[in-house]
């Protein structure tokens, strides 16, 4: 051991930025969070068939909202590419688009929830499907809302000069969060909506078990 002068004690051991690594660790942890929620929904599928089930999921409408969220992710990378090149106009335009598309997605979700309640009487209290589905997608919606608030704050801060090309890492980190929320939705759309609602009308419990057995996971 020795004491060398002039050591830059702000350099990280891995050369990776602390905050970016924090975000990736957080996302890893959030994987467990959403994994548990989605897993709980899946193991409760078809457990109690009283009340509305997956047949009420609207695939056309959700496909559109999924498309909106995917495009918001595209807007997010374009915003990041803008600020990394010092193009603040591009950054601000696309960040605003992300927030707007995110809000549209939330609007779709609110429409879905109110429709379920109004037409099918489905609330979190109705049955197991209501509890698992609404709490799971509700937590996802909360994540989207947090992301919108975060990105609005960043957009606002950029007008105050607090966000600029020099600290574009702030945008990159918020972007990682936003894309993560997007991939969680990709999983929910595939597993919960498409696979879940496939042939749902008139399907008996036996069929579900048969399918689960056939693919080995359900």
């Amino acid at each position, binding site marked *: 051991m020795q004491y060398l002068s002039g050591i830059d004690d702000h350099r990280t051991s891995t050369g990776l930025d602390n905050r970016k690594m924090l975000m990736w660790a957080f996302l890893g942890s959030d994987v467990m969070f959403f994994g548990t929620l989605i897993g709980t929904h899946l*193991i409760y599928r078809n457990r109690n068939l009283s009340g509305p089930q997956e047949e009420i999921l609207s695939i056309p409408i959700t496909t559109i909202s999924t498309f909106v969220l995917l495009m918001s992710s595209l807007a997010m990378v374009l915003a990041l590419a803008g600020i990394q090149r010092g193009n603040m106009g591009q950054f601000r335009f696309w960040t605003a688009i992300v927030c707007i598309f995110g809000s549209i997605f939330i609007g779709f979700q609110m429409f879905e929830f109110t429709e379920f309640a109004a037409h099918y009487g489905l609330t979190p209290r109705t049955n197991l499907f209501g509890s698992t589905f609404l709490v799971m997608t509700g937590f996802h919606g909360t994540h989207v809302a947090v992301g919108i608030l975060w990105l609005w704050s960043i957009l606002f801060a950029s007008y105050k000069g607090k966000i600029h090309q020099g600290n574009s890492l702030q945008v990159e980190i918020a972007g990682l969060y936003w894309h993560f929320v997007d991939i969680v939705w*990709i999983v929910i759309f595939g597993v919960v909506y*498409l696979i879940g609602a496939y042939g749902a009308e008139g399907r008996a419990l036996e069929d579900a078990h048969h399918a689960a057995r056939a693919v080995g996971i359900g």
Partner: protein
Amino acid sequence: MTTEHAHVEEHNHPGPRQYVIIGAILAVITLIEFGVFYLSIDPALMTWIILILSSSKFLLVVGYFMHLKFDDVRFSGLFFAPFLIMVSIAVVLMALFFNLTR
């Protein structure tokens, strides 16, 4: 510093053009998924098709939009280690709850 490091790496990063292409691919896959939903096929086959299509969307977003394909491999470790643990736990839970282990 880390930011300089990032500038060096930026040469092999995809640019806006590639991002738009990826976005288009994601849209097309979503459309295919939508179409598959209306086919009358074996539920097991349908399940596997959707799983494959959704995984490719997942990997495209993680790999390109989140830069994981071009970024430090340790970030991938931080993300995919818990991902694999969680998928395994979920599969085991489903096997247990659908009585596949008796």
